[in-house]
């Protein structure tokens, strides 16, 4: 593994400050959206993976990433590129990201999906496993709506997506 340079590390620390505009507790790093950071003197290239393609937040995220990195004194130019390969999958959300999603009231994506495509998540509020799917499609492309029969709260879950589908 290559050693991260000081410059790359400082870019990563700025990326940690860029949150998902629709889930403001989780950073783009924690969501697994950053594929590569490359520093070329004063130019920073960031390759990012879109979660869902129709996500209207992508351009906002791009602008926020540029703005954040430009705050570094040595940076002259920031190039943010969305790429499709490798595809973003819900397994890319980090453990800290999963924890922060829960704090926001969103169940992290399930790690396992049944052979018939069925999946299950526990309630992010009370931890109960007694939950039902209300709607696979939710308020944003990457979320589903569920209901907890334990604490009687509706909640959302991040939809699992994988190349196995």
């Amino acid at each position, binding site marked *: 593994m290559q050693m991260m340079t000081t410059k790359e590390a400082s870019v990563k620390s700025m990326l940690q400050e860029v949150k998902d505009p629709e889930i403001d507790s989780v950073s783009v790093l924690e969501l697994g959206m950053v594929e590569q950071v490359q520093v070329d003197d004063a130019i920073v290239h960031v390759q990012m993976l879109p979660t869902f*393609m*129709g*996500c209207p937040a992508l351009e906002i995220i791009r602008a926020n990433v540029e703005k954040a990195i430009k705050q570094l004194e040595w940076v002259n130019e920031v190039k943010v590129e969305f790429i*499709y390969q490798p595809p973003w999958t819900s397994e890319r959300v980090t453990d800290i990201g999963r924890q922060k999603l829960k704090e926001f009231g969103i169940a992290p994506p399930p790690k396992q999906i049944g052979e018939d495509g069925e999946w299950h998540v526990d309630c992010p509020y009370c931890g109960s496993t007694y939950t039902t799917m209300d*709607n*696979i*499609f*939710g308020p944003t*492309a990457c979320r589903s709506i569920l209901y907890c029969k334990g604490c009687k709260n509706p909640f959302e879950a991040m939809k699992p*997506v994988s190349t196995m589908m």
Partner: protein
Amino acid sequence: MKTAQEANENKAYKEAVTELLYQLADDDFIHAFRGSEWLGLAPHIEEDVASSSISQDTMGHATMYYQLLEDLGEGDSDELAHGRKPEQRKNAIILEEVNGPGNYLKEPDFDWAFAVVRQYFYAQSKKIRIDSLKNSSYQPLADVAVKVNMELYYHLMHWRTWFSQLVNGKGEAPERMKKAIEKVCKDFDGVLTLGPNAEVMASHGLIEEEKVLKQRWENEMENVFASLGISLPELGMERGNGRKGEHTKDLDGALATLGEVYLSDPAATW
């Protein structure tokens, strides 16, 4: 071919991949628009959220294809989406058809049976096409196919559920579904065809042969139809071939509405 640059160095290849991308882009673009016209009108609120989310994903897929066309030097992707004339469009005719009498703002008397049948048939044909495109000789398109496939999984599951439940439903549902199936079949060959240059696309390894893909779609459908105790009517292309730029006035109306904001000031940032 790994990149747009490589594709551009081979004229015949470039023409074939461009033609295919226009079909894929225009199909998703117009289908997403007709789907979005159900916003606020779907049978219940969960469906409003679901079908709108599916339309949003689908528009995202069109965006990727237009981007691939831009990368091949076809022009700005927004212009490709909004600025091209109806006769330049390559989408299938059944996808441009209005959702029903009236219009979105005034007395929309839309037909949910037609919406479900068109959505389900289209999602299944898209699934077969995408599975083939995962092995496309054009690497950027193969990458996009992997991405689309993950989202399409949920779309297909959604529309298959609606389709089976309404066909097996009570009251007027089965009869309305039967009529909708007949209506969609009359023009669905227009979706399953890859147009006059289908063979060239296959010979360049961009996608499999049209007849292979069509057979796969029919097999899939016949299994589902048999399990529901109904049969699949004959497929046709009654109103023309959209792949040749043949269209109905429904497309004019859709493009005028879709492009209204963009065309008022193409240089603006929205």
